[in-house]
């Protein structure tokens, strides 16, 4: 029961910190909105083209926004020594790390879900695929945070880990991008998307169970 208490305390702490430093919430969200609004300007008056590539645009932007937000996951805890205290706790580090990842997703992933339908309409996406878009974002963005956490944990001790981080993490994001983008596109043409959604669910379950361990192990290496 006290493990549960510690888990909740970490989530609560990180949400409180996010409220106190608002830029952490605003940055990825603003980036997501800006990138998507730039596409119609760049492509010009071709609504059909825009409509056709809308799922790709939204998902690639979500991916990049997630990348952008990753560094904040462990950086400040690493710098002020809170990470050492979390790792020295008698509770399993992987569970506490999972709490941090969940809080991070609530702060950076969930806001994307809220603005995505608006931006989809803006790009002319057919209304029947909006539900599927939301579903893929709901299943996919937590995976981005979970997989990204492994990469950040490995690079947080380096002074300039940004480039290595994207090289490490982006290839692992590709499966999510492929299945999510494909599902939204299929839904636009009125085809069934059960298979893609099932695969996304299994990727989410798998990373939920498997990602916290290597993340905790990598953090232990990084504080060394």
């Amino acid at each position, binding site marked *: 029961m*006290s493990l549960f*208490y*510690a888990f*909740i*305390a*970490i989530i609560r*702490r990180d949400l*409180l*910190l996010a409220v*106190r*430093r608002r830029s952490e919430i605003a940055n990825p969200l603003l980036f997501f909105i800006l990138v998507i609004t730039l596409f119609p300007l760049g492509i010009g008056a071709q609504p059909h083209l825009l409509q056709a590539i809308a799922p790709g645009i939204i998902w690639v932007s979500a991916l990049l926004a997630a990348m952008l937000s990753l560094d904040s996951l462990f950086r*400040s805890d690493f*710098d*002020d*020594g*809170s990470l*050492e*205290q*979390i*790792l*020295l*706790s*008698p*509770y399993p580090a992987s569970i*506490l790390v999972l709490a941090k990842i969940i809080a991070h997703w609530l702060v950076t992933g969930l806001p994307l879900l809220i603005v995505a339908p608006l931006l989809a309409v803006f790009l002319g996406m057919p209304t029947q695929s909006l539900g599927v878009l939301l579903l893929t974002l709901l299943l996919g963005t937590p995976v981005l945070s979970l997989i990204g956490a492994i990469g950040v944990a490995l690079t947080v001790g380096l002074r300039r880990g940004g480039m290595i981080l994207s090289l490490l993490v982006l290839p692992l994001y590709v499966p999510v991008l492929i299945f999510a983008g494909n599902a939204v596109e299929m839904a636009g043409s009125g085809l069934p998307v059960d298979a893609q959604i099932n695969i996304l669910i299994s990727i989410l379950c798998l990373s939920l169970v498997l990602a916290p361990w290597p993340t905790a192990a990598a953090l*232990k290496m990084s*504080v*060394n």
Partner: protein
Amino acid sequence: MPNNSSSRLQGSDLSCIRDDRVLFEELCFELNSGQLLLLEGENGSGKTSLLRILCGFREPDAGQVLWCGHAINDSQYYDDMAYVGHLDGVKKELTVLENLKVSLALGQRGQYSIAQALLKVQLADFEDAPVQSLSAGQKRRLSLARLLITHNTLWILDEPFTSLDKQGISLIERLMTEHCKNGGMIILTSHHDIALPSVDVQRILLS
């Protein structure tokens, strides 16, 4: 609440090699309840490295650390120890109270309540102050308050007197004496001369 009087920390044949430089080799020590171990040595002599090995952040290049006869990773070690390092380990955006509540959630309830601990480290009026408005010495006292609110037998302190004034130093010395009297044990590094007449002090000189 240090109540386990049979606790014992042993280091056997510890070595640490950093960038091909041997910091220490075949270091042995044994620390029992009520004892204090003071690590002395020049800058760069491996004091902090030894503390980080004892915390389990670093693997010793040879030898092992035993807690009550078991390797630290296979024992209750992390239930019984607390570490205050160079970094304070507090979030500057949170208030004093919020920081201590998180620390309490991450450990087990100890001898003192949060209010009592704040009174002891003379921060009682700062409960709701954000940590970034505190001075360096007050932050240090806050991170030491963490030792009082959670259950622990072994304190590992890396330069605990940094940025404390005379009054703060004697305050921490009082707390350390009390901890050792209650059967706790302490390992610390310090450049200050410490005055603990009633405590069984061991010294290791690293060079």
